[in-house]
């Protein structure tokens, strides 16, 4: 327990990932839902950094770097979409977003 190994980080990452999943499923407010997706990506980043550290290999860090970049881009696009939606409908509740079904 005391000796922190890779497994610890992986487990932590998994728990955070699960929290992210929980959020993704639970949230109905799109903005808050986007938060949860950020958690997903962040949790993976921890694992990448940890693996990179324990293997002495830089690839993991680079992956994490790109993940951060991707997360940032996603925020931009996601917020753009939300803004358009909000302008039209005045809400960002996904329960009110089901005109297409079946």
């Amino acid at each position, binding site marked *: 327990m005391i000796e922190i190994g890779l497994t610890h980080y992986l487990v932590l990452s998994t728990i955070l990932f699960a929290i992210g*999943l929980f959020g*993704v*499923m639970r*949230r*109905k407010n799109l903005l808050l839902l986007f938060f949860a997706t950020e958690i997903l990506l962040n949790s993976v980043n921890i694992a990448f950094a940890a693996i990179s550290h324990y293997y002495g290999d830089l690839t993991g860090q680079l992956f994490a770097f790109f993940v951060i970049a991707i997360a940032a881009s996603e925020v931009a696009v996601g917020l753009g979409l939300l803004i358009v939606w909000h302008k039209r409908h005045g809400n960002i509740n*996904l*329960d009110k*977003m*089901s*005109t*297409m*079904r*079946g």
Partner: protein
Amino acid sequence: MELYLYLALFSPLAGSLFAALFGASPKTIVAGVVPSVLLFVSFVSSTILLLHILSGGDAVHVEMMTWMATGNLYIPFGFVVDQVSVTMMMVVTIVSTIVHVYSIGYMDHDKGFNRFFSYLSAFVFSMMVLVMSDNFAGLFIGWEGVGLCSWLLIGFWYEKESATWAANEAFIMNRIADLGMLIGIFLVYWNTGTLQYDKAFAEMQHLDTAILAWMGIFLFIGAMGKSAQFPLHTWLADAMEGPTPVSALIHAATMVTAGVYLVVRANPLYDLIPHVGLFIASLGAFVALFAASMALVNRDMKRIIAYSTLSQLGYMFVAAGLGAYWVALFHLMAHAFFKALLFLGAGNVMHAMHNELDPFKMGGLRKVMKGTFIMMTLASVALAGIYPLAGFWSKDLILEVAMIEHHYIIYSVLLFTAGLTAFYSFRLVALVFHGEERYKLFGVHPHEAYKFMLIAMSPLLILAIIAGAFKMTYFEMVTQVLPATEYHIHSALTYWIMTIGTQLFVILAIAYAYKKYQVAKEDPAMEKRLCYKILINQYYIPYFYEEYLVKPYRELSTIFWKQVDMKIVDATVDGIAKTIYATGEKTREMQSGNLSTMLKWMVAGTVGLLSLAVVFGLAARYSDEIKVFLSGLGV
């Protein structure tokens, strides 16, 4: 000779086609005359052929062209005129020529006049094919052809429900028998490799008796249908719905005897299987009695004659079954003459009585219809088998055959039937021509038929009287191809006792008939008796067929359609389609359009995969332990 053969064969066809040309037009006398003339040509050609054969000429055998040839099967249109077929040709052409001429008068007022002659000539053509063919397939062509024409002619007055019903019944019943015939033909082909009579019969000598027996049985089933033997007999009585000339030609003289002809023709086969022959004879005897009994009480003139035909066919089968083929053929010929005469006479009566058939509504007609009276009486005498008319010679011979072959039961049945025959024949004569003129009650004014009709009938009368005289000539001729067994009772005393006894018995029966029906009166007491009811209802056989075969068939058909086909077979197919569709309808809810649900599905899918992965991962990791565990369980 080939020319005459073709002439004999195809002039009826030409006549038929000629008449058919006028099929849709109103009555033209030409449509009746030309076929009659062409039939006369056919008759003349047949006579020439007969003379040729009689003068010791070889059988005429032609092969016109190939019909079917495939694999080893080779079926030509081949025709043979030998002693047997020429007999049949003579019978057919004589009777049909007469009937044609007669019909010109009989059908005078019918709007289907032209059509009638077309059918009638077509029938003759089919019959000629039947008798002249040199192979089983050709025989079958004629066989079915006469069936078709019989259907057309029975149902000639197609506006009558009963007529069309009878036509269909006749056709279908014949078809049942034809199946037997067809199977017989298949058996012949696969066992002998050919359908030509001569080759097949030659081959049969080497075959196993069991196979031959099956062949004989199946071919005889075919014969049973055409010759209306029990249990396929009901159609014949119903077939009387057709015009009377048709009854005379088809249902008395020619077509119904085709079965006898088949057995005679296949004599080499039946000779090899005497037990089947005995069965045929027994059935014949039974039918003779059975039909005669029904004729006793019937109140329909034509049906009475029809039953008598049936009964006489029974006689013929007795002869044929016992191996006396020439006797059968001889009776066939004689019977054809007097029975046709009887029918034509009945036709005259019907005409006179405006299609009334119940003899109880006639009576005393001898005054107005002298010619017909004489002819019918003589025909009845011939039928009863009184010396020296045709019936005596041929029928007595059959009795003798039964005697000589030691089939005493058959003999006594036949003897008894002979009495019955005499009784019902003269019952009819008595009712129709003697006694009170009951028809007056119905306001009918009977008149004699056209002269030329009576003249046309006269050759039949003559033949009915003198046919017996040709017995020995005939014997010599046909025994060149048929087994030449002379039937003589060795003891002269027995012979005379038998003959005179029979004659006396018959005359007694006639006398009784006259006595009883001289004054026709309804007899309610008799009508209440059980046996009367059985007889008048034809042993309840038609009823049985209707209730237990026709109706169930109809109902089963409806069940098959509405229940099985629609509700099971089709519904299964539709059910599969509907199930798929319904599944779609139900599960499309999965696509609720709500993003949250979609995300949940994604996560659920992943978790599902994960659990499978874990299970599999664990299983892989602990595969050894699992194996041990499972082996412990004995799996």
